[in-house]
């Protein structure tokens, strides 16, 4: 394979997991012969007969079934057709899966794949970022890979982890993001990654916003600013150490997320940094999130609703001036 996309990496990780571990199976709408709405399970039903199964349109029962199978030692992967639809399977995730181990000592190794995040023209119900909703609940691990390599290695880890994992895969990265090859090793889950080094300001972000931040950093570099970018990779657990260490170097913190502004990842990061690394900041920490409305359909509105390289650069400039 000369190059591989983020989406193909997700498919490959699932193929790998199915190949290596007989306990793995995939269950979701249209994941079987059709290969999934995004083709993330293309050919897998054929390659692994009886282990990649179409479900009815029953998100609650999909997750419930996965929990039951996990009790029996299986490692189900549930594909939600869009993250947005996980709200109808919500109860089984946040009350059934997430409490099982704590209540019974029986672990619940399920992976719920959420194709998430905004893409142009997708509108309020096919664009949502729900990582903060899941991260608030105890008992869940919430992953948000930003690169092809992480999509692959973190999905493999997700399946291997003995806890329910909410795997947030960004639809905007599916086709466009490419890598030369799949990684053979990876940072452990729970470790953030320095996506770009810099000494003037730290941008903490994750998923698709890492790429917006990288573009902003390149732009700011032409103005003489060196921006450090921390890619969280995992929003729960959150790698406070790496964040604080970066802020210790730069003295300035801008948190960027594509989710809605109230609460969420950016608030949590700021709360941690200011509680634990207060003296390190030379200026007030700042946040940049999506606007506090549903995600709009029209590309004009959509582009203004979410942070972009442009708005990140502007926020960074403001902060650098303080």
């Amino acid at each position: 394979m000369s190059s591989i996309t983020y989406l193909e990496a997700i498919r490959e990780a699932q193929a790998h997991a199915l190949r290596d571990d007989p306990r793995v199976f995939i269950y979701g709408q249209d994941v079987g012969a059709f290969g999934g709405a995004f083709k993330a399970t293309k050919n897998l039903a054929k390659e692994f007969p009886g282990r990649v199964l179409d479900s009815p349109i029953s998100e609650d029962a999909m997750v419930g079934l996965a929990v039951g199978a996990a009790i029996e030692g299986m490692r189900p992967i549930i594909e939600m057709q869009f993250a947005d639809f996980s709200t109808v399977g919500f109860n089984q995730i946040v009350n059934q899966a997430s409490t099982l181990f704590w209540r019974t000592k029986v672990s619940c190794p399920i992976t719920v794949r959420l194709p998430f995040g905004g893409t142009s023209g997708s509108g309020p119900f096919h664009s949502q970022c729900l990582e903060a909703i899941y991260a608030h609940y105890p008992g869940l691990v919430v992953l948000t890979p930003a690169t092809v390599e992480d999509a692959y290695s973190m999905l493999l880890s997700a399946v291997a982890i003995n806890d329910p994992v909410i795997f947030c895969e960004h639809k905007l990265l599916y086709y466009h993001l490419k890598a030369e090859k799949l990684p053979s090793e990876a940072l452990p889950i729970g470790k953030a990654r320095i996506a770009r080094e810099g000494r003037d300001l730290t941008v903490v972000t994750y998923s698709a916003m890492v790429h917006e931040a990288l573009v902003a950093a390149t732009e700011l570099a032409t103005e003489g600013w060196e921006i450090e970018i921390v890619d969280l990779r995992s929003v729960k657990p959150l790698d406070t150490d790496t964040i604080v260490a970066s802020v210790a170097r730069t003295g300035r913190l801008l948190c960027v997320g594509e989710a809605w502004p109230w609460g969420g990842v950016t608030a949590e990061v700021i709360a941690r940094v200011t509680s634990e690394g207060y003296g390190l900041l030379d200026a007030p920490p700042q946040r940049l999130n999506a606007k506090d409305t549903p995600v709009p359909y029209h590309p004009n509105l959509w582009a203004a609703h979410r942070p972009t390289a442009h708005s990140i650069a502007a926020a960074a400039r403001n902060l650098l001036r303080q």
Partner: protein
Amino acid sequence: MLQSATHPHAKSPIGAAPDLPLAAYRFMLRARLLDDKFAALYRAGKIHGGVFLGRGQEALSAAIGVSIQETDVFAPLIRDAAGRLAFGETIVDAVRTYLGSALGPMRGRDGNVHRGRPQAGYLPMISHLGAMVSVVNGVLFARRMKGSSGMVGVACLGEGATSTGSFHEALNQAAVEKLPLVLVVANNQYAYSTPNDRQFACADLSAKAAGYGIEAHPVVGNDLSACLEVVGRAVGRARAGHGPQLIVASLLRLCGHGEHDDAGYIVPELKNSPLGRDCLKLAEKFLLAKHFTNTAQIAAWRGEAIREIEDAVAQVQREPTPDPFTEDWSALATEHLVEGYE
């Protein structure tokens, strides 16, 4: 919805009997041509996001639209272009939503099939399947509370949506409240790519009605007269106070799930079966055989519709798109509770 003197069938010279099928047919035709246009615009890269068509389901959808009235409630789904037009949606509003005009009912905030005017009893779907049914219940419930009677509410779903918890809760709720809900399930044999045998295990979805204590109406969904008769009857039963009615129509979708999908999963057996026959052609044949109309008239209607669609597209393409700078970035009706985040 059949209304006022401007309605096409009002001009029909053939008398009372053919009115309803002719009216329905004209909505079918307009919907088909509108869908064709959306498909063309999609292929030309002129539409952002998905395009979802009702090809093959127009008879059922139009039958719904002409069987209800302006004062009724209608919650169409993704394959209901015909019903929407029949319920009074203008072609311009449909085009505006697909093209994201700032002047459309959704003002570019929502798109494609997510359109409606709730004030007018025309409910704009959210994507989550099954979720609109209880909203229809609520409208009916409120109207009854306010003393209205004689109205009905129609909610449309695909057979795949019968697997949702929402469908079940709402249908049961309607039954307990004895609401005049008409739930129309278009069983087009597939939910996206998923065939019926992976979706449910009963032989016929009408068998569900008894478990809710409501009445069932199976119908062949590509037969316009059958649809008109059965939908009419079900709507009448609901209107007369006999509680929720479940219509289950068997048909086949003659297109992909969306225009991005070639529907390669639809098996030839079904395509070649009676279900695979195009309801529009069947309706044409029927109307011609009955001498309710003639080919010249149909050609004229087609021409009219195409002109209207082209005009609408041309008009909407000149309309303003939403402007992020003047956009009111607030999700609340109550201004003083809106938070500023910048």
